[in-house]
């Protein structure tokens, strides 16, 4: 299966690797006791350690270590029982110490693998090269003053997990699928909230192109792309840019680039023009981190059921299609909501209602499933009324709309509005008779061959019964009447 791009003189293959920086969910920072909450007053969540004052020293937050190990386990990765923190030395306004505490040669997590799900229903594996812990930098604001950059160190020292993929992806769709799955796993584990708009998940994309079958081409790194859509756009632009350069006889310069979302292009990042010599060496203010293998094993048993496992279980236990199961497990709250609705009920019907109706309503109202106006129990109640034929599927949609707006439960709405299905064959027959008499001319046309009018009669009976006639029964009875 190929995702080749057609160039002017033949096909090209894109090779992609993603480096994701995921902010760790924790109360305090990686090496200091300052808070990590988003959106605080500038420089209010900064300790002297984060601001690299003279004589300050780092002390590691054990929960951040645990979060990183949990994430490694969720990525099916090797947990390294000994890892080392190194200093990455460079100068920038938002890096107060002039170095970042990171991990270079001995990261806490080694090789792993995740399964990505593509829109066409295929799944494939993407390798994880490593995951390491490091400090986040502060924020530089360049637009507050004509000649000065303002520096806010609130973010300085927050724990980040840098997750590096193998260069296994071959299209922007695969990159998007990788980010979705990774984000989903992180949120399931509770180790990162995956919010790209707020910057708790940031993506650097490494893009290179090559002729199919050839070795790796020179890659360019596109830094800090902050939405999945932009990642796709950046990849597509950059791949075409590189192909054009090469086809015109040029060479790709290895460099760091930025994605300009406004213009949809990538461009060279000025500050990174000089290649950095980070002069990594083990941080002498810290000791190597040694993990107890028994503790890692215990941690493994506390992991929640992750998306792939849950998807497999939904397919097996609820008979869902891979697509539907995939949609329902993408988000843990949604999966839980679904299971509550599906328990003891028609699982496929429940799935339909979530995917086709509830998601639309949530989107329209701009809320997430945790704040759904219709609870899982309430939706279950609606599904029950359909399952026992109290109301038709058609009527159920109206009832649902009313549930969303009023918060009342289905049974109450059906009673109050008298929406019970008419399933009494006598009543339906009577209604059919009335309609056929009223529209005798159409009946004659039908009898002379205009079979399309069947739908007209259905519509008229539905109108006469205020939509309450059971559709299946109506169909049968009308057929019989017209045949007889």
């Amino acid at each position: 299966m190929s995702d080749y791009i057609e160039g002017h003189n033949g096909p090209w293959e894109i090779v992609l690797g993603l480096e994701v920086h995921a902010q760790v969910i924790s109360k305090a920072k990686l090496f200091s006791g300052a808070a990590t909450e988003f959106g605080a007053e500038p420089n209010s969540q900064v300790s002297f350690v984060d601001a690299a004052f003279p004589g300050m020293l780092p002390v590691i937050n054990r929960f951040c270590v645990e979060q990183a190990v949990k994430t490694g386990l969720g990525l099916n990765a090797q947990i390294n029982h000994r890892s080392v923190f190194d200093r990455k030395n460079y100068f920038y306004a938002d890096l107060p110490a002039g170095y970042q505490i990171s991990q270079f040669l001995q990261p806490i997590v080694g090789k792993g693998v995740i399964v990505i799900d593509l829109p066409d229903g295929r799944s494939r594996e993407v390798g994880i090269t490593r995951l390491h812990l490091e400090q986040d930098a502060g924020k530089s604001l360049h637009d507050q003053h004509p000649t000065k950059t303002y520096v806010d160190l609130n973010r300085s020292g927050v724990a980040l997990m840098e997750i590096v993929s193998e260069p296994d992806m071959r299209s922007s769709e695969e990159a998007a699928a990788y980010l979705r799955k990774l984000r989903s796993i992180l949120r399931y584990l509770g180790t990162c909230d995956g919010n790209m708009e707020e910057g708790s998940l940031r993506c650097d994309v490494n893009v290179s192109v090559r002729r199919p079958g050839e070795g790796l081409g020179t890659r360019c790194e596109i830094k800090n792309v902050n939405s999945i859509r932009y990642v796709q756009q950046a990849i597509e632009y950059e791949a075409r840019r590189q192909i054009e350069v090469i086809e015109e006889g040029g060479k790709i310069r290895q460099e760091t680039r930025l994605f300009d979302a406004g213009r949809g292009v990538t461009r060279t990042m000025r500050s990174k023009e000089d290649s950095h010599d980070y002069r990594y060496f083990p941080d002498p203010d810290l000791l190597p981190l040694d993990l107890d293998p028994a503790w890692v094993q215990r941690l493994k048993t506390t992991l929640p059921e992750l998306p792939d496992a849950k998807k497999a279980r939904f397919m097996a236990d609820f008979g869902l299609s891979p697509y539907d199961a995939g949609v329902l497990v993408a988000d843990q709250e949604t999966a839980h909501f679904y299971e509550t609705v599906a328990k003891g009920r028609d699982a496929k019907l429940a799935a339909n209602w979530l995917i086709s109706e509830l998601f639309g309503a949530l989107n329209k109202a701009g809320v997430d499933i945790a704040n759904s106006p219709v609870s899982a129990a309430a939706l279950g109640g609606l599904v029950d009324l359909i399952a026992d034929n109290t109301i038709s599927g058609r009527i159920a949609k109206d009832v649902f709309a009313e549930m969303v707006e009023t918060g009342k439960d289905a049974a109450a709405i059906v009673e109050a509005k008298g929406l019970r299905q008419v399933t009494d064959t006598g009543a339906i027959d009577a209604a059919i008779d009335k309609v056929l008499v009223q529209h005798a001319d159409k009946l004659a046309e039908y009898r002379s061959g205009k079979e399309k009018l069947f739908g007209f009669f259905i519509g008229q009976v539905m109108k006469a019964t205020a939509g309450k006639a059971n559709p299946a029964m109506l169909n049968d009875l009308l057929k019989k009447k017209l045949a007889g």
Partner: protein
Amino acid sequence: MSLDRAAVRHIATLARIRVSDQEADALVGDLGKILAWVEQLGEVDTAGVEPMASVVARKLPQRADEVTDGNIRDRLLANAPEPAMGFFTVPKVVE
């Protein structure tokens, strides 16, 4: 190991220390001498010797995930050469 002026300039840039031509020349001499002197470590056979990982033979101490610090903005900015509106400021950086 001989060091030339270009190398000295490169290191000075990495270390963000402006160095005049005169200083650079003096440094070529001084640093060259020091580097030549430390070369003697090459005499020692260190095959199979582990680099010292840490002077202290203990486990890395770990702290609880509690907010115990921060909210000290005034003290944080008290020594700043050019604070403004709760921020540190530096000459504008163009990305």
